[in-house]
């Protein structure tokens, strides 16, 4: 078992609110773990803890065997991240933005390679040389996907990544995730999209009020069953 992402009794307290209640989770290479939950359930908190953006109150998060809190910069070599709303440098072009983030990740790509990643992510080729300031949310999201893919990370953290994408682009993104998974990338995706979770997920977790209340294998599970289970948990 090659566990690349792990949470051990991970807990986060914000002043008067316990945002995450002792999360235990292991995700293997090539696995896609979809985390469902309402707004404020603790999905983004979990991702932020894996990213090292916030420090846990107790417990620990691990990426590729390294504890995140004590290796904040180093663990970033192994992970890529796509936020719900990808924000880029508005004065730079799509190509320049991708070049910047790839360079920082340690990859030096030729312009043709950068273009390949952008087009693969669904960005029209003619938009790549334009300033990002004029991009729609969906176009920025595609650049964000290209940035994540070009990093060739072991772990992909996604926070509502298809937000702003049209159905066709969302579908293409799902196919891309499956390809990455086949290549051995572990994917952790926080989402509200039950049907996409079922379509791409290896396992689906349901989170409620900072607690992982259920984890189900996606295989053999109907979307309607998943929806029913999810709603049951939400109405407890």
């Amino acid at each position: 078992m090659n566990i690349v992402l792990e949470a051990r009794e991970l807990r986060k307290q914000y002043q008067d609110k316990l945002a995450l209640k002792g999360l235990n989770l292991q995700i293997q290479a090539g696995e896609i773990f979809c985390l469902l939950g309402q707004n404020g359930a603790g999905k983004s908190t979990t991702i932020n803890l894996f990213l090292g953006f916030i420090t846990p109150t107790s417990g620990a998060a691990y990426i590729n065997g390294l504890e995140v809190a004590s290796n904040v910069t180093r663990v970033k070599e192994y992970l890529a991240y796509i936020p719900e709303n990808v924000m880029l440098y508005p004065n730079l072009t799509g190509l320049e933005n991708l070049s910047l983030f790839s360079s920082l990740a340690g990859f030096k790509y030729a312009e043709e390679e950068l273009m390949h990643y952008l087009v693969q992510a669904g960005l029209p080729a003619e938009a790549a040389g334009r300033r990002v300031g004029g991009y729609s949310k969906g176009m920025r999201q595609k650049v964000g996907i290209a940035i994540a893919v070009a990093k060739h990370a072991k772990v992909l953290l996604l926070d509502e990544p298809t937000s702003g994408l049209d159905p066709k682009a969302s579908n293409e993104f799902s196919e891309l995730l499956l390809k990455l998974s086949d290549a051995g990338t572990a994917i952790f995706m926080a989402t509200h999209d039950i049907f996409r979770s079922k379509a791409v997920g290896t396992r689906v977790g349901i989170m409620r009020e900072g607690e992982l209340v259920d984890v189900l294998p996606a295989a053999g599970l109907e979307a309607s069953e998943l929806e029913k289970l999810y709603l049951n948990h939400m109405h407890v």
Partner: protein
Amino acid sequence: MNKLRILIKFEWLNFRADKGLLILTALALLAGLYGIYYGTTEIERQRENIAALEVLTEQNVEEMKMKYPGDADAGDLGYYHSTFAVNHPDSWAGLSMGQRDLNPYYLKLRLLNLQSQLYDTENINPLKVLSGNFDLAFVLVYLFPLLIIGLCFNILSVEKEQGTLPLLLSQPIGPALIVGAKLVFRIILVLGMALFLSVLAMWWGRVVPDVRVVLWFGVVVLNCLFWFGVAFLVAALQKNSAFNAVTLLGVWLLLTIVIPALLNVYVSVKQPVPQALALTIQQREVVHGGWDKPKGETMEKFFALYPQWRDTAEIEGGFAWRWYYAFQHLGDVAVADLAKSYEEGLYARQQLVNSLNVLSVPVNVQGVLNAMAGSDLPAHLDFLKSASRYHDSLREFYYPFLYRQVPFTHADYAGEPRHSFTGSPDFTTIYSGLAKLLVSVLLVFTAALLLFKIRTVTVK
């Protein structure tokens, strides 16, 4: 190092694409170029005026020769003939004019009493003095901080506000590297401009290259670094861009206007200086009173000071130039203590300013640059002392003609002493100012680093 280079490169791309920053930088550069033009032009004008004074003196000599075709009485010449004490600008004065616009750079002198002539200057336009000098020092000390504020007020906050920080921090880099790269890029940009303008000003002003080149660069670099440190300190508070901009402008206002104004008031109260006007009035009263005093009494006082002329001929009749110049000089002697306390008061005031300028970096830096260019108050006081010595030498030149009653021939004009003075840099002020500046830079950067370390950077 590689990542720092990458971030700096993209900072450059961002800067290049930002019209607002380009305009701000271009304005600062233009202000610097105008400052160089203003300073060098103004000092060149002073040089031309000083050169014209030599011509005026020679013309005056020719007029005297025409007025007195034969032998002349030295008393007449002492009264009608004038010469000048001149304060030549140092070759660096164009870069930092200091008080050269405020204080006279030449004095018209005759053999009459000195004190009234020391403070008898040309009229100047008070509005021009009020607006001050727009020289390179002004641009570097007062305007470059605004450029630095404009470039740095949002170095960290903009990443949060435009939402790029999460994606940036998901790369294997820390916030320190991000802020560091932004600061390094801006420091390279601003120091590049400041040093380019300095080199251009030195070349344009044809400065004599000496140790001051290094010192000037040192002051300019430290001054800019101080303001970068302030910007870093405010950025470390992790507030929004509006808060940062207002805070930084507040600090600029405090250090460049409020504290200097308060220092001015404090120094005036703490170190009062007798008015030059009071000195002049008292001296005039003594001189004018000389007309009514018995000649013997006046001459006795004078001979007590200059016994070498005691055995000269008796003064006869109603008027004698010897007697006239004696009571003129006694007027100076009568206010010597007042003149000394005025001079000492000004020096003491300068000392007080030098000890308090640690409260305001701009005041300190301006003082250092003026001291470097020989255009500060002590340099002017040195000029006044030099002018006094020159007046003494004029008296020593004319007294033998007056008291031995030797006719003054045309050939004697050539023997009349001429004056020349150039303010020299005050290295004590320069080095102590540099040390204070260095401490200020270290303090502000240490505080900023500590604050940056204490307050963990959050992505929102």
